[in-house]
């Protein structure tokens, strides 16, 4: 037992390969069933999610399970057919779970962001998905020069594989937040594909607090000049929870900029987090400015945090590229120090964890959501303390 952390540049783990050559297809039959040794599956407990990777999925639209908190000007939502031209505009599956979801969904949820004036956040909630293995597809389209904050909330039971496409039009500036607060038995394998347009900004935020196996893998393609992304993540893995994120930033166009920052806390026997950060700076991406980092805070024994940054640079003409990764313990000496100043043990833990994760929560930009998540993080702390 004990807490293990693992960080490496991955080069020692597998042969040098370029992320850009990874196979992509919307057809599940084009992928072999994963064995668990593949680079993108080796840290996932695949025996717990084989049904989502290999099995038949219920692809019926989740019309009664999806709810909008309240209408907001500049946002609209509709169910669209598989044949709609928006489908497939942001990317294609790179793993079998993603392709399985793609092969099985009947209708996709389309969310359009059209408003040019900043408004309140648009909150779309999903719950009551039950325990049947499902497929889902969402397409988020931000019109040129649009502004907005979209929050996708998930709670309750679920076994779901899904794809989320995000197309950010020229000059748009949007924030897409996904929040996973599933029940402990839930399994959720999500792939996000984003295309960011000329001089546009996508702020992409993944918050995973609950679920048995939660894997959210965003691939963000900076495919137009001056495109920009800020990809943030926050996770809090409790006993027995596996929370994973494989982030891929693809600098295709010149003068593109990316910032990736994921922070996680782990507490309880068997809590496991995985962060893999692939950044590719293509030959065409002169003037790229890129930085990615992952920070983990270990709160108890028996946890494991995997943190693997990979940086591929194909052009020398860049502004900057860097990465950082750390996994640290909340140790007894810190506790002693805070307590020696009169602060109770419970408060001391709260102080440290809240401080650590607040940096990500504050990126959302929607005070009500931030406040709720701060409360949710504090509730997590009391689960096993």
């Amino acid at each position, binding site marked *: 037992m004990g807490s293990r952390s693992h960080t490496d540049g991955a080069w020692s783990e597998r042969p040098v390969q370029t992320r850009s050559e990874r196979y992509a297809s919307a057809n599940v039959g084009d992928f072999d069933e994963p064995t668990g040794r593949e680079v993108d599956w080796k840290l996932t407990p695949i025996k717990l999610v084989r049904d989502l990777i290999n099995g038949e999925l219920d692809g019926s639209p989740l019309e009664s399970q999806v709810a909008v908190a309240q209408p907001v000007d500049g946002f609209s939502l509709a169910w669209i057919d598989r044949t709609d031209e928006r489908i497939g505009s942001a990317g294609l599956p790179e793993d079998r779970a993603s392709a399985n979801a793609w092969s099985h969904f009947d209708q996709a949820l389309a969310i359009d962001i059209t408003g040019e004036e900043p408004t309140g956040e648009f909150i779309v909630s999903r719950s009551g998905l039950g325990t049947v293995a499902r497929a889902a597809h969402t397409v988020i389209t931000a019109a040129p020069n649009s502004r907005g904050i979209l929050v996708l909330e998930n709670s309750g039971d679920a076994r779901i594989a899904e794809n989320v496409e995000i197309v950010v039009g020229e000059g748009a500036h949007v924030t897409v937040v996904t929040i996973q607060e599933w029940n402990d038995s839930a399994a959720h394998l999500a792939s996000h594909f984003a295309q960011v347009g000329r001089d546009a900004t996508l702020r992409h935020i993944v918050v995973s607090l609950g679920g048995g196996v939660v894997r959210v893998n965003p691939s963000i393609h900076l495919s137009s000049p001056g495109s920009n992304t800020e990809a943030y993540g926050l996770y809090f893995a409790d006993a027995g929870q596996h929370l994973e994120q494989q982030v891929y930033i693809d600098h295709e166009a010149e003068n593109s900029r990316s910032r990736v920052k994921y922070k996680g806390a782990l507490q309880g026997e068997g809590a496991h987090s995985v962060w893999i950060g692939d950044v590719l700076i293509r030959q065409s991406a002169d003037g790229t400015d890129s930085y990615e980092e992952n920070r983990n*805070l270990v709160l108890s024994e028996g946890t494991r945090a995997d943190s693997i940054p990979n940086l591929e640079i194909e052009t020398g003409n860049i502004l900057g590229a860097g990465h950082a990764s750390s996994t*640290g313990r909340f*140790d*007894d*000496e*810190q506790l*002693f*120090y*805070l*307590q*020696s*100043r*009169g*602060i*109770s*043990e419970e*408060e001391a833990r709260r*102080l*440290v*964890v*809240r*401080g*650590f*994760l*607040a*940096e990500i929560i504050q990126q959302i930009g929607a005070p009500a959501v931030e406040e709720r998540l701060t409360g949710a993080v504090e509730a997590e702390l009391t689960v096993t303390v």
Partner: protein
Amino acid sequence: MSVLEIRDLHVSVDTEQGAKQILRGVNLTIKQGETHAIMGPNGSGKSTLAYAIAGHPKYHVTSGSIVLDGEDLTAATVDARARAGVFLAMQYPVEIPGVTVTNFLRTAKTAIDGSAPPIRTWVKDVRTSMENLRMDKAFAERNVNEGFSGGEKKRNEILQLELLKPKFAVLDETDSGLDVDALKIVSEGVNRAKENTDLGVLLITHYNRILRYITPDFVHVFVAGQVVESGGPELAVQLENEGYDTYVAASAAAAEAIASAEAADAAAGVVASPAVNA
């Protein structure tokens, strides 16, 4: 007037070889406003005394007691001791990632006082104390001790001492690693606290350098987990000139005498006295 009493304190620490006895019957009485210097060679147990008073979980009190104004703190939690008025300025303060100095100070002050400090005067107090300790304003927004130099960490300890206003402060080798300018600044901070709040000080040090700036009322020589001699400030001067050798040799001779007496007792079939620590 407040009184901190250390009565016949025996403390052991867990090591890989099992529990190791470090303190062997320490007696000290410190009244508010008094400054007691504890001086001793490396390994004599000075820092153990500091940690034991603060309640560090690694140190186990096997007998004796720590009493503040008649209240027995021997079994109290670390935070309860702090709220009762005991402060430890640490030799090696740890980093607290993600918690700014501002947030930390306010949280600690609220915990100690039982209610949040009035915002206007508090902000002013923090600013004044930081200026007095020549700490840059930017410190307030940095994470506690993160990336601080050795001197900055010590100043941050004294900043807390000034703001939290304890009854008694244990300074654990606060002077170690400080250049003379930093030593003066830190000493001034301690003297201000003594003046303003009638602080009682237990100053643990190896050298008498800091005693040029913080005048002790009493000096105690600490060897092999015990106070072996007590006196006034002149004792520090004597130690400066003569070192600890005489005390260490005397202590070793005493330990040997006890051991040989036990051996003789054992040879004579007498059950060894349980008071071997005496």
